């Protein structure tokens, strides 16, 4: 009886448990996210396989015929149109998924199904919640990115080992987007439509004007800044370097890596700050 109601735990054991949470708390959060995704693993799987086929063969190949007809066979960035857009399509998918998951997941986690409030009442810290959430989101876009990559190999769009780099590049972009979006969404207390506003006025234009479907230079000079601030453009350029060795100066490559990294780091710090404020006030 007494053992049940009042376990006489020795201090050491309590400290050890606390240390374990200190070290692994982020993973418990990520595990929670992944578990809840299992509910719709079926549709994730179908969409994961379906979208690369549709976008690469449906859109890319179809548009490719028109572009190559007009420009010649290797006219876009020195390669065929399909080779040019394939890495960008993969990354655009990652960006949209990461943004959606972080927008509605984070807002919902405070409001609709307040999982964060539950986590707060345990030994977890806000930093662990943020890290765990961003990692849990990977469980959605990394498999999708893998399907894309496999499809790209299967359709003969990419060759060689460089294509494997698409996965770490996808993780870099996904993390930058997740943390940046989280940093903003965690400050929003009521949804008066601003959530879909961001999707409409930030994410959609970023997808469309980040040198995804055509080289950034094709756009009017006044619009190039959209690409420069877009992590999608930077990572798509990295992807092009990795998959077909596009021409790129070293310093530009460094910028393409550092920019998303900086965004991820800044986003992480801001998110932790906002989560702390929101969960402890």
């Amino acid at each position, binding site marked *: 009886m007494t053992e049940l109601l009042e376990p006489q735990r020795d201090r050491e054991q309590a400290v050890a448990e606390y240390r374990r949470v200190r070290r692994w708390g982020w993973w418990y959060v990520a595990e929670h996210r992944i578990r809840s995704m299992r509910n719709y693993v079926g549709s994730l799987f179908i969409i994961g396989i*379906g979208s690369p086929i549709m976008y690469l063969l449906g859109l890319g190949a179809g548009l490719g015929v028109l572009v190559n007809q007009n420009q010649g066979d290797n006219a876009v960035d020195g390669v065929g149109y399909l080779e040019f857009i394939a890495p960008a399509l993969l990354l655009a998918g990652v960006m949209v998924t990461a943004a959606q998951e972080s927008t509605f997941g984070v807002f919902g986690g405070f409001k609709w199904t307040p999982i964060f409030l539950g986590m707060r009442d345990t030994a977890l810290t806000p930093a662990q919640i943020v890290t765990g959430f961003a990692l849990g989101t990977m469980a959605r876009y990394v498999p999708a990115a893998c399907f894309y990559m496999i499809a790209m190999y299967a359709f003969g769009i990419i060759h060689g080992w460089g294509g494997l780099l698409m996965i770490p590049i996808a993780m870099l972009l996904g993390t930058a987007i997740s943390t940046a979006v989280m940093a903003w969404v965690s400050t929003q207390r009521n949804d008066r439509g601003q959530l879909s506003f961001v999707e409409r006025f930030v994410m959609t234009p970023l997808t469309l004007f980040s040198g995804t479907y055509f080289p950034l230079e094709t756009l009017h000079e006044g619009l190039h800044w959209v690409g420069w601030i877009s992590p999608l453009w930077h990572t798509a350029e990295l992807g092009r370097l990795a998959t077909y060795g596009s021409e790129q100066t070293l310093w530009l490559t460094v910028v393409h890596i550092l920019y998303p990294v900086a965004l991820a780091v800044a986003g992480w710090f801001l998110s932790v700050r906002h989560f702390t404020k929101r969960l402890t006030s």
Partner: protein
Amino acid sequence: MTDVRPRMLAGLYARNTRSVVARGMRVIARNNWLIIVTGFFEPVFYLFSMGVGLGALIGSVQYHGVDVPYAAYIAPALMAVSAMNGAVYDSTMNVFFKMHYAKLYQGMLSTSLGPLDIALGEIILALFRGLLYASGFMVVTTLMGLNLAWTAIFAIPAALIIAFGFAAFGMAITSFMKTFQHLDFVFFIMMPMFLLSATFFPIDVYPEPLQWVIMAMPLWHGVDMIRMLTTGIFEQAMIYHLLYFVIMIVVGVFFATRRLKALFLR
């Protein structure tokens, strides 16, 4: 008390659709007119990006033997896609949310309203949004010089016809849905339609069997119908497009009415 309504609809319809529409208008006016209005930008972004950016790479496209500038080629398609997306979103996601989360219909069905009043009201509101977007888009394309013939003005009613067809069907399909995840399947059907229905390039790049599949789908008919109107290049196919949507609307409305009980009166 004599009841003049046809008996079949007495349990479903109270002839008070206007109060449902009025509620929607009130919400738009008080709360989210900004959200509604900004929805118009989505096709415009696509038009600028694909039409202008990609257009620089592609130049022009052959449409029924006539060279059409790429932006003018995709503008009507984007209009049809926007009509489809809006109608499907309003009749699936929106209806599902209002039913199971906001419990809005539960409140409406505590009054003398019937399911048919609600369904018609939602469809009318969706069409109203569609009308706003289509008109706004027409202004943009006209300013950009992408409407090649005066018949382009008929693209607005054509967009409404497309929206009606999709909304009626969407409503019927929503009655089968149990969880939000089921909505994924709707978008899984819409994605290939969006990408393949001669939206961004002519379907003759595909093998013939695939072309037939695409031509069986509604969006292709919508795209081609509006494209004929904005380019002024008419073919006999126009009649089939219209016929396709007339049938789609009739079947959709019939189907949706049959499913109203399943949708609202569980």
